[in-house]
């Protein structure tokens, strides 16, 4: 079916993701010319490992944005999930399954709190999540006195290292916890959004909540699912981050919410709901990751890196908005 392939390609060529892909490819090509270090397996694995935390959170936020809401309490949710799960593991002993279950359970429960407040008290999601960010975080620091946990269980500190293989001389690569969790989360989110009835319902609800309600969608149930999913992703991301940092620091995560928002909206998700793709989110994340990594490899002082990130965000959103306006005026014209 070459014709349908051509049609879908020409649709892709007009999409936000296509332009993002071009920008990333150009960036990658010029970086690999400028520095041989860039296009190595080592660097690729390091990038995936260090951006897994933001990536997993971005997937949760993507689902919330598509559903027409917003959540910025996820950093606090992650801090709570991380602290409780690993403090319990230290005190009473645990294994991978129970520590994951705890983090996911706590994340899901805090997500449910958000969903109940938003749906039952009819408060806009932005207000609820700003409030719960402060409540979760404030209570966590109040009860833990902001103490770090430095000694993690041995099995957790060691992590996992699967599918080990050799590449070149004396360097071995494998799938570590971060990359494994990132891949699984991407796969599940893609499946839920694109291959299930619920995924279509989430898009429909975000596009027009009133219409979805009149069609008989279970709005409360869908919202509950969406905010719990965000919480679960925060739980998973928190473990990934704790394993990478080899410690639990309750005060470090809060304040990073806008990094995640930046990745998701760079990927084309709309804050108005109903729009956004998993591929776009991946590309948005990749753009930020490649840019920051590239600047370091080019020897630019890390002090200047936020300036470039700011430029890229500003230019990218401006160009997107401008091209959308051009298309609209073209369609409106004769």
């Amino acid at each position, binding site marked *: 079916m070459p014709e349908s392939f051509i049609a879908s390609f020409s649709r892709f060529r007009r999409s936000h993701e296509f332009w993002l892909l071009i920008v990333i490819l150009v960036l990658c090509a010029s970086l690999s010319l400028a520095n041989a270090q860039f296009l190595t397996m080592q660097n690729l694995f390091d990038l995936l490992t260090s951006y897994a935390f933001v990536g997993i959170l971005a997937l949760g936020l993507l689902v919330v944005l598509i559903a027409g809401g917003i959540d910025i309490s996820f950093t606090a949710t992650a801090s709570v999930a991380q602290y409780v799960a690993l403090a319990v593991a230290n005190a009473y002993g645990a294994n991978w399954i129970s520590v994951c279950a705890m983090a996911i359970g706590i994340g899901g429960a805090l997500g449910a709190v958000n969903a109940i407040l938003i749906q039952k008290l009819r408060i806009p999601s932005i207000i609820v999540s700003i409030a719960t960010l402060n409540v979760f975080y404030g209570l966590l620091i109040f009860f833990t006195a902001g103490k770090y946990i430095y000694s993690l269980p041995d099995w957790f500190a060691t992590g996992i290292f699967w599918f080990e293989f050799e590449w070149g001389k004396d360097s071995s690569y494998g799938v570590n916890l971060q990359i494994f969790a990132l891949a699984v989360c991407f796969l599940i989110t893609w499946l839920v959004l694109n291959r299930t009835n619920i995924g279509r319902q989430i898009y429909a609800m975000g596009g027009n909540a009133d219409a979805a309600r009149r069609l008989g969608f279970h709005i409360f149930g869908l919202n509950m699912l969406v905010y719990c999913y965000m919480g679960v992703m925060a739980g998973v991301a928190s473990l990934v981050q704790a394993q990478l940092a080899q410690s639990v620091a309750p005060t470090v995560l809060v304040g990073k919410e806008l990094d995640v928002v930046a990745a998701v909206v760079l990927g084309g998700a709309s804050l108005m709901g109903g729009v956004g793709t998993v591929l776009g989110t991946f590309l948005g994340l990749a753009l930020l990751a490649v840019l920051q990594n590239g600047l370091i490899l080019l020897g630019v002082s890390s002090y200047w890196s936020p*300036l470039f990130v700011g430029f890229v*965000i500003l230019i990218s959103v*401006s160009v997107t908005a401008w091209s959308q*306006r051009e298309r609209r005026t073209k369609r409106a014209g004769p």
Partner: protein
Amino acid sequence: MNKSPLAALLRRMSRRVGSGTVATLAPLLLALWAGFAIVIGDRFFSIDTLQSMAFQMPELGILSLAMMLALLSGGLNLSIIATANLTGLTIAFLLTRYIPGTDGIAWVGVQVVALVAGFAVAALIGLINGFVIAYLRVSPILATLGTMTLCKGLAIGLTHGNVISGFPAPIVFIGNGTVWGVPVALIVLALCALPVATLLNATPFGAKVYMIGSNEKATRYSGVDTRAVLLKLYVLSSLLAGVAAVVMLARFNSANAAYGESYLLVTILAAVLGGVDPFGGFGKVGGLILALIILQVISSAFNLLNLSQFLTLAIWGGILIAVAAVPYLRGKFAR
């Protein structure tokens, strides 16, 4: 539930005072004041306590005004803190680099020039925000996220995260001095709040801002140049962030790329608590001021009780949810 005496009382009270933000916040403030007075006693009403409250409130207050302006138009300004820090650093740099050792015309001149340059930087950032939002039609949250990162990047890149400190006495006086017992910073807050309130309530510009917040398209079709209004609004928001910068650098006697970052979401919290609709169109300066006093009273009382500032944060969040739920609960009880 409708027959319960509590519901009847609530109904009668809400009929008496109307159902605005003030009707919710004023009783809350009185209740907090009474509660803390019982727990803490006289110390809560001492001159020292009141003065320290008046010293702490203006920074958050002026920043919240800046946030409120953007919120009223249905937007958001995430770049206020970064703008304030970049402005503060500009002023701090000029003051510490070019100030002569002795008093004189040059000494006054440098201070004036430094302040003017700082406000020029703030205005420039506001122009960028306004242009990108109004003319390129980028959603405000994305545009200001970009300028926030940009400004912070510039500030960090130029200072490497270092602090610039040591300013002449008149500047420090703005943050730490008092006039007849009233902190100068509080006077600065009043000098910001009154004109902003007048601008919003008594001028065509203010009416246009509220209209844009309610329905931008309808406002444009009714012949208002919405783009020019938005541009001016974001410049104004930036300039207020600049005023906050002066108060902050004067109070700490220093400037840095990362001061006050935790204030960003708190300004939204304060504005929304003060009755500003997060989707635009509604909200008064009076409500915001009342909300700021409530937040400050809780914070100061917890401080006197030796409770953690993080517990204050949690209570602030809880109060926001409680106040935001009032319209819904009132609708339920009044039926």
